[in-house]
């Protein structure tokens, strides 16, 4: 019966697909390709209502095989992709985009550009929301390629300027590239998303032509628009831009403060801390201590000598001046139940000492102040340090002994 036929057909289709998959996962590309030629028959009677239908499957698998097959060439890849474009109208733009990416990855920038332009001019009936998005992406990538040719022209022009002659045709071409790139890039970054690459390029374009206001506005929008996903890079770009243009410390600090709130473990936190330490305001210096403590909470910062020396310096300063011990107390309060096991265990003392003496020195100082001289970490490191007769360890021991009562005050 027809139902049985359908059932058998579906079964053999699935079996064939599993063979292809099996071959691909064992890197038997030839075998996979042979099976794929059988699988093409499944297009003939496509009863499936699944998310990924056979034609999409063939496109994906075929691309994968052609990327790895030893006998495949760019020409074959192109002709396969052209066929795939006509196989399903709904997927046309997606295939075009992927095709362009493949060309770009193989260094064929011009072909990729042509492909993107062609895709851009494609029209078929009513556009769906997804197709709209894909079209925007295609335009954006074309804009990106325009940006690259712009920057190439720019380099030529700069070199020519250095050599002392000017070529108007290059300059004109550069300007036309700018216009094309700017138009497309501007469009895509209006849509909420993660557009680091596009934003960077667009800002570069704007800054070259001296449109700093527009550049600032773009970066602000990218960082602070709540419709965009929380992206730490957006704040980094804004910070870098402000820094480039010598903006006052205050605005830099306010940008980094927000970055600190989103990602306390960001590597810029070291800069932030340094900046805050230099400030004359007490509140900012307190924030500096908070920032360095928060960064050291993270597993990724555990071995960071710079951060530990930073903390050690600040803690030492506070203890010597005997002012603002409450700052340390405040920070220590939420950490005293787990920092000892996380940072100051005997095992870590041993390992830090073996691997990095500087690190163990800085950590021992912090441990000695926060936990007293009986702390395992401090005891081990100062003992080992004194054995080597290094002067700084003797000084360290003396310092901790002198301020031994601090730990009682901060943990009380």
């Amino acid at each position, binding site marked *: 019966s027809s139902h049985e036929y359908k059932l058998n057909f579906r079964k053999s289709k699935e079996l064939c697909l599993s063979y292809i998959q099996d071959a691909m996962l064992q890197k038997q590309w030839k075998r996979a390709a042979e099976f794929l030629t059988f699988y093409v028959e499944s297009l003939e009677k496509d009863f499936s209502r699944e998310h990924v239908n056979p034609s999409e499957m063939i496109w994906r698998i075929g691309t994968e095989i052609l990327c790895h097959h030893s006998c495949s060439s760019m020409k074959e890849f192109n002709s396969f992709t052209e066929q795939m474009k006509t196989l399903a109208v709904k997927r046309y733009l997606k295939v075009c985009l992927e095709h362009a990416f493949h060309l770009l990855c193989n260094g064929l920038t011009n072909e990729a550009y042509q492909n993107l332009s062609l895709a851009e001019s494609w029209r078929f009936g009513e556009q769906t929301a997804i197709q709209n998005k894909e079209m925007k992406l295609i335009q954006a990538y074309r804009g990106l390629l325009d940006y690259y040719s712009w920057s190439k022209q720019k380099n030529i022009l700069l070199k020519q300027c250095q050599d002392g002659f000017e070529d108007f045709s290059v300059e004109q071409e550069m300007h036309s590239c700018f216009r094309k790139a700017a138009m497309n890039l501007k469009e895509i970054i209006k849509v909420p998303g993660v557009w680091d690459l596009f934003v960077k390029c667009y800002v570069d374009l704007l800054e070259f032509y001296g449109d700093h206001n527009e550049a600032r506005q773009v970066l602000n929008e990218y960082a602070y628009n709540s419709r965009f996903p929380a992206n730490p890079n957006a704040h980094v770009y804004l910070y870098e831009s402000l820094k480039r243009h010598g903006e006052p410390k205050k605005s830099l600090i306010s940008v980094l403060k927000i970055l600190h709130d989103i990602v306390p473990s960001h*590597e810029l936190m070291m800069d932030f801390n340094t900046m805050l330490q230099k400030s004359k305001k007490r509140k900012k210096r307190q924030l500096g201590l908070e920032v360095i403590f928060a960064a050291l909470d993270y597993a990724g910062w555990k071995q960071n000598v710079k951060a530990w020396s930073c903390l050690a310096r600040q803690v030492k300063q506070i203890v010597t001046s005997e002012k603002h011990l409450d700052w340390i107390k405040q920070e220590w309060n939420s950490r005293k139940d787990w920092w000892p096991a996380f940072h100051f265990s005997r095992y870590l003392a041993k390992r830090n000492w073996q691997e990095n003496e500087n690190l163990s020195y800085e950590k021992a100082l912090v441990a000695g102040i926060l936990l007293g001289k009986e702390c395992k970490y401090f005891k081990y490191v100062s003992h080992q340090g004194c054995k080597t007769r290094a002067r700084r360890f003797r000084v360290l021991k003396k310092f901790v002994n002198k301020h031994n009562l601090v730990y009682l005050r901060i943990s009380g």
Partner: protein
Amino acid sequence: GPGEPDGGTGRGPLLISRLISLQAETAFVPRRGGTGESWEPVDAAAVPLLPPNASCWISPLAPQDILYRGVLHGKLQTGKSVATLDFTKQLGHFFVDHPEDAFGSLGRLLHQNFYLGNSKLRVSVCLGVTTLPPTPPLAAASPRLYPFSLQGQARDSTIRMTSLTEEIDRLEARRGCPQQRLTARLRWFSHLCRDWLFEVPLGLLADRVHEELLLQWADLLFDDSPTGGALAWLPPEDRGAHTGRLVYPGGQAMNHLYFQDVVLEELPRVWGSPVQFELNGRIRQVAAARVDGEDFVGVRSDYHCGIWRVPDKTGMAPTPLQVIRTDVPACCLTVSPHLPGELAVCTQSGAVYLWSVEMGLQRLRRDPQTMFFRDHSPWRWSDFTAHPRVLSCADRTGLQCLDARAPERCHFDLFKVGEEASCQQGERVVLPMYLGRAHPSQHLITTQFSVYVLDERLPMVPVLKWAHMMKAPPLFAHVTPGGPGRSHKVLLGASRTQELLLLQYQGKRWGFSDAATCQLAGPPQKLHSIAGCLQHLPTQLPHRHCLLQQRLSSPAAGLAAALQEDGLRESLLVFQLSEVGDIFCQRLTHEAAQPLAPTEAELPPESCASPQPSAAVPSPAAALRYRRWLKALSKGCGEPPHQSCPPTFSQNRLFTRKELETPAGPSALHEQARQRLRQAMREGGRIQHWDPSAPQPPPLPQPLEFVEGLDSLSARLTAAWSGDWCQWWEERSSFNLAQRQRVLRERRRRQKRARGRRSLSASF
């Protein structure tokens, strides 16, 4: 539909430039593809590491067991995928398997009214006895009818059970007959007994059975209890050493926890005997993490979780530290990689706990509802993040991160099934895992369709996505971090299909701006599954082969891997645990000096498009392992009792003693027979004439003399008997031909004559 995530949270459309990334000025690097490290399997199939877990043989539940008979067929016809559970059969099983529970005391009470004898129900006349008899013995061998004071009453209130069972048997025999009708007596009986015969109220019992059936069916479709896997590898303290520890469950109910030293040689082998702990329930998950040089092993069973500390020195026994009991089954247990003795526990009631050996349990959340949209699954998961006080907390709809110091206030969404990650319809989180060993802020999230890598610092937008196309959702994952400039190796394992995939990805350990340049390196690779070694085992008898196949293809229950460095040569040993407790391993090697992509010439010639590519042959050492394993299997657990041997009868039941009596000594006849038997065996011939007393074959009955008057059938049979049937046929066909020719000739002659006569008359 029910699988539609409601993605409308006001975030608007989100486009992600995830496909490509920019590195140098204009060099484009594909997000996936490229070349990875080549890890080649050494052996043709997975090799057993341990002797089979002999005592464990749970015959797997098949859909046929609980589905309504014939429903599969019907389902295919209608094209609907609604399964009908065979509730009646299961309830019937319950009555047969647990009659005491079902009918116990009521049966005892009614005993008097059931007559179990074979004879006709007689009414004993016993006038004058008015007292009730003492409590009748329960299993009376010859039930008697206790006389009642009034004989008429006895007759009315007693049922002859034998006839009733006969009726039921007859009913059974007529099963499937469309004309079947219940006899009046049965109808009457069931009608009378319906409400009060059962010990457990029937409605309640039915509810429970149905509930259990639904549960079993759901488990059959997707069982998430082994999520995370029950196998852990504790690597040696210094990287050059060759002895590590494997932690795994075993025993009849998989309730024994073993810590076994394993030496990593060409084929890994066990060293010494394992340290063993007997636990209170089936072990579902074994999780391990190393903190400060000590390994902490968390073990989860349904209602208990425990933690063990394993000292770094080999030879020191692991010590159990603490056990907690839960009212609702626990579904997750992860061990903190940051702080010693800290774990995260989740239960199916939606509660998430931070469990510290020193501080006890701290509940971070309790919410029976799922986080982002409604999903029925009570499964929850929790893992650690880059911050030791922040835990990730997952259900099927996504992941959130909670700060244990203020779980109510401080949390953010890490991953959501929806538009941001361009998820498919019906996609659900299957297993989240913290990738701290590879990158301090990255997480792996698997769904039934894809694998995602998330960065805590850039939540919601995956830095890597790959559609894995596995047939069953990956319940197990393992990451082996690669050093600087190397790729991280991620192993994904599925339970039911035993699939095992190796994928490599690269992402710089440091620097945030590069977080977006996480890329998949090389095509993913399929590893051997346990079931794949079946073809390399010695040939078995068909029914044994079947059993072996069943055993080897039982669902996987865990996954572990060990990296071994030997100069330039690196090996990755992958261990796989099956649900019945067998552990198999395989070795993959990577030559550091070798060029990254092997050229075609180096690859073994590929076979053509055949379903099974020509299989390599296992090494002699592996073959020896297979043989030993098989021997141990057949010796140790034999076969499951109910399937093992065909029913046998003692000879005594078939023959009388006299018949079985053996003669005093071997007679000459016996000797002769034996001799002939031996000779026949030597020659490979047959023994045609068994009766030694008649060495000559009886003379064939002489064929009857060919009688003229025989009909054709008799003639044919006679010819066949005498062996010249062929000749007979020849003759017959030629005879026929001759006869036909003769007849034809005769006819022509007659016609001619007739024509001649006619023409003559016509001329008149």
